[in-house]
């Protein structure tokens, strides 16, 4: 047994999923399976690298990605 600090861990899928579900709800309630893969990846990236550690800011991040997608 040892003290073993961990680094660069990927966020679990359920955290991303819940964040996206909340964002989807806020954006008008489209089904989670309809969210494009690239959006998932972008949010995943944000969660992984952006220091996002809870769903609350992730909701905002997911919404921001959606808005960017729509504007594009």
């Amino acid at each position: 047994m040892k003290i073993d600090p961990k680094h660069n861990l990927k966020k679990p899928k359920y955290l991303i999923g819940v964040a996206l579900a909340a964002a989807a709800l806020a954006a008008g309630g489209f089904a989670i399976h309809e969210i494009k893969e690239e959006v998932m990846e972008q949010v995943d990236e944000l969660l992984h690298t952006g220091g996002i550690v809870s769903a609350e800011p992730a909701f905002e991040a997911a919404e921001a990605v959606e808005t960017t997608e729509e504007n594009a």
Partner: protein
Amino acid sequence: MNLTLYLTENCNLRCSYCTREKHAQDMSRETVEKAVELAFSRGKNAGICFFGGEPLLKKDLIYYALELADERSRQTGIPFLSKITTNGTLIDEEFASMAKRANMQIGFSFDGTMQDDCRRTKEGGATFDLMVDKARLLMEHGCDTVAMCVASPEACGKLFESVKLVHDLGFPQMIINPAYGDKVTWTDETFEVLRGQFDQIADYMMELYQKGDKFKVAPLHNKISELIKGINPSKYCHLGIRQLAVSWDGNLYPCTSFLDKPEWYLGSVYEGIDETRRLEMAKRCFTPSPCKDCDLSARCTNSCGCANILNTGSPDMIAPVQCEYERMVISLADRLGDEMYAMGDQRFIDFMGL
């Protein structure tokens, strides 16, 4: 404010992993009165957790404290919440009825099928059958009860069957903690046994979830829900800030592992809180230095001064066994969370209470 009252230093059990010395020292009625006054003296809520020793050895003091608190709550309009951590052996009809009426939260220390390996009377007698009866009594009364289970190196091979027993007795939730402190020695071999048991528990939780059963087992369930909600478990117990422990003689300490350590004395219910010392403590960072840049730091109990002092003698140093344990349960919890989420987001959101 929240206080944990050490009603007595005495106990009718001699659990193999318990680190508290047993003495025939009980809290006086006057100290109880002063403690209730202190609980209502600041903050928007008043809370008392009855602790020991075995607090039900002093049922008279519990009923007295509840009577005083009820009266103060009515006078001041301040909501009051009571809790108890008990070995359960002295629970009776009168107590169960009172606990239900008072909405008391009961922490029922029960090790399931490991009970007789570690939790025997001071005469060495078995307690398992008695505890099953007491558990049924609490369930019949509909008391707000959580089963609190300690896994020791010697008995942890029976942890999974203990979880199933607790579920089958009707408990809605349970908390598992590994035995810590100088009475136990974890080795790589015994820890692997524990890991194997937790693997089975995670599978069992998934099986129950698929059936729509809402039984919850901490730490697996709460490692998932806390991550989603952004709750940092290391912030639960800022020492001496969110709560204080009151020793049998009325002295105040940051938490239960610090009782009788003069360097952690924070005043008394008679003389009041030493605010200067309390403030000094609030400014201290208890995150152990190896944990500061760990990705799991905000999901781990590394800053629990109580566990740290039990394991290492220092509130801001983590033990290898605790680090190993936290990494194991977080990893398992995330596997379980992903499996649950894959069954549908709305169901998962409901189960996690979001």
